[in-house]
């Protein structure tokens, strides 16, 4: 079954840009409100961008509870890798709407892909995260929501990324 929700590229771009703004602004509670109850947020291991979290080692594979815990942690003073907080700037580009080629989507969902470059500044260091987003966005009560969000990195390792993924990519 093809992905069903009719979404224009401009609408998808608006959504992604708003989202990037919330994340860069550390407004993580507002960002979490954009996610569905059955949200999945995942970051595959470098070198295995098309892996499955059911069979291969990832960096991140969060369900809603884990994602809430991640955000609670980041907003506390005890996420030491982000205390003091880093500053980030997300450049989102090459946005496309359409089947991501990874199978079925529901009638109320649209597949969106985009390229990202997230730059993280902390302790006078600059860390880069470059890769591809794949989303399934769902219409919930007329609002666009994140049902599935994968950030797949292009690098061979996290050695240009401060050795960790301590922010939401």
């Amino acid at each position, binding site marked *: 079954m093809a992905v069903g929700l009719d979404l224009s590229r401009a609408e998808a771009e608006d959504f992604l840009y708003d989202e990037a703004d919330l994340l860069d602004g550390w407004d993580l509670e507002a960002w979490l409100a954009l996610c569905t109850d059955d949200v999945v947020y995942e*970051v*595959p*291991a*470098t*070198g*295995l961008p098309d*892996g499955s*979290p*059911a*069979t*291969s*080692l*990832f*960096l*991140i*594979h969060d*369900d809603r*509870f*884990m994602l809430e*815990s*991640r955000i*609670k*942690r980041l907003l*506390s003073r*005890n*996420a*030491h*890798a*982000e205390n003091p907080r880093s500053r980030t700037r997300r450049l989102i580009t090459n946005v496309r709407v359409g089947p991501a080629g990874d199978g079925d989507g529901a009638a109320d969902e649209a597949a969106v892909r985009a390229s990202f470059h997230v730059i993280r500044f902390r302790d006078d260091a600059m860390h880069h995260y470059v890769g591809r987003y794949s989303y399934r966005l769902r219409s919930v009560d007329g609002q666009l929501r994140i049902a599935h969000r994968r950030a797949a990195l292009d690098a*061979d*390792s*996290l*050695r240009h*990324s*401060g*050795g*960790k*993924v*301590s922010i939401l990519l």
Partner: protein
Amino acid sequence: MEQPFIVDDPSTDTFRINRRAMVDPEVLAAERANIFDRTWLYLGHESEVAQPGDYVSRTVGGRALVLCRDHDGTVRVWLNTCTHRGATVCRETKGHGRFLTCFYHAWSFDLAGNLTTLPDAEAYGPGFDKAALALKAPPRVDTYRGFVFVSYNPAVIPLVDHLAGARDYLDLVCEQSDTTMAILPGTQEYSIEANWKLLVENSIDGYHAMSTHATYMDYLITAMRKAAEALGEKLAPPSLDGHAHDLGNGHAVIEYTAPWARPTARWAGPLDPALREPLAARRAELAERYGEERARRICETSRNLFIFPNLIVNDIMAVTVRAFEPVTPGLMHVRAWELAPVGEPAALHEVRLDNFLTFLGPGGLATPDDVEALECCQRGFTSWRELPWSDISRGMAQERPGITDELQMRVFWRRWNQMIGGDPAAAGGGEGETPVRLHAVGGGR
């Protein structure tokens, strides 16, 4: 004035290490010569090259290597360098094929190492010895329960002797499976801007769990409470309890009970209550096979195992295998994999994969803060001349040091000190290169 690297005085419960060991390029040069060039180093796991024709390449002890399985099914290790004029014969981190072909002049080697074809072979004289130009292996290669080690010291002691008491703990990890354990696809490749020895300490440090990892503990307790409420049960107060053990030759372990779930086989929130019964059944099977006490350890206890000098096998909420290498005194490269039983039922396997990610790895709720802690230590070491000593004496007066004590780190440092001082017995073989001698600590730098 000369200062030692460690002060080890049980009569006054004193154990300190000189922070110069963490910052000095001369120390790193001595570590390469006296430790990394002389003892056994972990390369990879046989399961990473499960099929004939599989290969992976990586750098270990500063040398580019290829681990592969030849067409007879034999696991082989080659120096990743062409016997012609030196180019790497394998330029992929992972692949499959019949040959390793050097693209430079197109010499081609089979996975058993033989030089099979080279262009215009007629131009070489009659004395040209093709057989002698086979790929070259590191001086020593050996495996224990699928873990492949190499040594660049031809006179190194046998691997089983080197592993000493660590063998039994590797056995415990492997007994989770009725058949064999395998490394899953996917590698966590990262780096830490800190001295490699800080990750040795950190990987077996129970003392920092509650302070550094407060946000993980909060996640875990919230999850356990939710599960207990859903089941109408009372939440037992979570605790970490156990002991540290010296395993010989610089290896050490902490073994303890912990609140988290273990896929083999300890149920706890946030696992689905439906998994309680299959996990209990798995534990009963293991008790049948290994006896109740051994099964209790396999299932109930967690262990952070350090194998000198740079391998960690942490069998905690899942099993991670972690190896790291110094690049400079203030930078290490880290690789972490996940080890899991082959043929595990899918429902348990998926839980294992997710349980791993709650804590472990550079995207987990814990490891990023370890990276931060180690980098903060390294920054603090800028004043090593003014404040030269770090204290590692915790638990020295205890008869049985616990997991929040520091015995396991002292075991590492004592071995390190022996080897860095060029003690030939500690190098595991009296022959080979003359060890490097370090200059005295002193001003002028």
